[in-house]
């Protein structure tokens, strides 16, 4: 059967392509890792190199013992990601499902209302005033949780599209005939079939929360104990950049560096920032399992 030969060739081709792409991804990451354990002075003198002249774990020592409390930031990041993803996923899925029902009166209007937010938004200052004055969430955990990240039009429309094409009407009809309410139909029929999209959007929302530093940047001016790990890293890096680029207006810019950690520490923080994802992602991948079509409705 020439099918098997062909299949094999495809597999080999696929592996070759993936190996190339993975190498491209992994090389710079390897560089990141290695430079985080390279001695700082060597980094400054010789630049980044795959084979360090001198190894030093100072960066990691600094991170885990310094006053910045990287460990604490980790906890915040993790808590924020879990809570945010659960909440965000819930309202996004419900919304997406609701918009997918063709009989819903005003469905197009609602969809447009959702979509419109993708293209226009009030801007930074009005958003800030809204959350800070009206809702008073500045310098609280809610400031990390609520603005922008919980639900966005992109995710909702993805969900909607999946529900429309991936959940056959026939199955839902079968459930209605059995006397199920809309809620029931959603939970027992639509949701299990939507596992791949739920996992996907959950991943997107989760990554969004994990990566975000913007919310912390503008809303956390007093509560340093609420800094997430990306927030911490980005602040540090931005401060250094600022120093480098603005010494004309500020005298003694160099003095500021005495209190900011060095190059190797920045690298180490970046490594530390991606570590949990490396650990967690394989588990989520298990959910990318084909939805099994329940017996009874085929063709």
């Amino acid at each position, binding site marked *: 059967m020439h*099918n098997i030969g*062909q299949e094999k060739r*495809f*597999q080999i081709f*696929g592996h070759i392509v*993936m*190996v190339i*792409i*993975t190498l491209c*991804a992994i090389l*710079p990451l390897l560089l*990141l890792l290695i430079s985080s354990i390279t001695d700082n002075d060597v980094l400054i003198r*010789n*630049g*980044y*190199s795959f084979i360090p002249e001198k190894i030093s774990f100072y960066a990691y020592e600094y991170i885990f013992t310094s006053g910045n409390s990287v460990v604490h930031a980790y906890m915040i990041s993790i808590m924020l990601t879990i809570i945010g993803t659960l909440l965000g996923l819930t*309202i996004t899925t*419900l919304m997406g499902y*609701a918009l997918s*029902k*063709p*009989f*819903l*009166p005003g469905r*197009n209007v*609602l*969809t447009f209302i959702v979509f419109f937010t*993708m293209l*226009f*938004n*009030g*801007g930074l200052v*009005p*958003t800030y*005033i*809204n959350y800070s004055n009206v809702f008073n969430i500045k310098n609280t955990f809610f400031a990390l949780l609520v603005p*922008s990240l*919980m*639900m966005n039009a992109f995710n909702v429309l993805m969900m909607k*599209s999946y529900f429309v094409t991936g959940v056959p009407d026939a199955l839902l009809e079968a459930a209605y005939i059995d006397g199920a309410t*809309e*809620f029931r139909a959603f939970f027992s029929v639509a949701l299990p079939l939507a596992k*791949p999209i739920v*996992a*996907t959007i959950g991943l*997107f929302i989760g990554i969004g929360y*994990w990566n975000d530093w913007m919310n912390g940047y503008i809303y956390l001016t007093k509560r340093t104990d609420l800094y997430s790990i990306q927030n911490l890293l*980005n602040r540090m*890096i931005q401060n250094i950049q600022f120093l480098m680029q603005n010494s004309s207006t500020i005298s003694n810019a160099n003095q500021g560096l005495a209190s900011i950690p060095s190059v190797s520490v*920045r*690298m180490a923080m*970046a490594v530390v*920032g991606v570590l949990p994802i490396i650990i967690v992602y*394989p588990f989520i*991948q298990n959910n*990318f*399992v*084909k*939805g099994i*079509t329940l017996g009874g409705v085929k063709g």
Partner: protein
Amino acid sequence: MAKAHYKKKMSPAQRKSLMKRSIPIYIMALPGLIYLFINNYMPMPGIVLAFKNYKAKDGIYGSKWAGFKNFRYLFSTQDAFVITRNTICYNLVFIVVNTFFAVMVAIILSELVAKIKKFYQSVILLPYLLSAVIISYLVFAFLSAENGFVNNTILKAFGVNPISWYQEKKYWPFILVFVNLWKGIGYNCIIYLSTIIGIDRGYYEAASIDGATKWQQISKITLPLLRPTIIMLTLMAVGRIFYSDFGLFYQVPQNSGALFPVTNTIDTYVYRGLLELGDITMSAAAGVYQSLVGFVLVLVANLTVRKLDPDSALF
């Protein structure tokens, strides 16, 4: 898939039952709508800031109108053409390149059998999690004139003279497209992958029995079924065509002046000017400009798509 068409005229009984069905659905949509209202619609009137002569005492809504004064800086310069061209061209290239590779990787990943595919998938996602500044350091590690990996290792091996990468603008469109692809491929392929996973395996089995080759299966089954997703994502990207990834165009080229003709986009142009001016109305104006253009383009694009392939249209 046939859409149910509901006639406008319904009997009272039908209308009642429709309402009964719809109420739970509205309830489901409620949390989302509340969130959208709080997060997006409440601040939206603030868009007028772009048209105002802002004074702190009067606040956003009390300040006097300024007409289009705050928009002038986006158009009145010779650079307006360069920055607009850069922004649009890069985005178009990104759409094509990223979609092609994301779909390809998704298809491959879905077809691979070996367990190692999980490893591939995890690794290629990681670049997405790195912040722009870290990426700029990594790029610098490769492209540095003195110590860079490319100059010292690769070019030396071929006996080519070292190149001052950050001062030669001709390489940068390729570099930026590559970096953008590198960063996004792991993330972008996920949505296609999950769509493919949802395709009924039965189709492939039937095709295989009929003697279809792998490529035929992909092109006749997988791709057409991916089309709605591809179109939707492209439409959304079109809506953001006047925006650019600030980190990519400002940090990665290390703000090197020699590269401006190919790295200056609307966002970086605005940032450079407003860094000193600190004018919140001007940056609001830039935002309105970008949104408006994107909005118009998406409407046009969506209408076109609706004519050709109604199921794939966004709305």
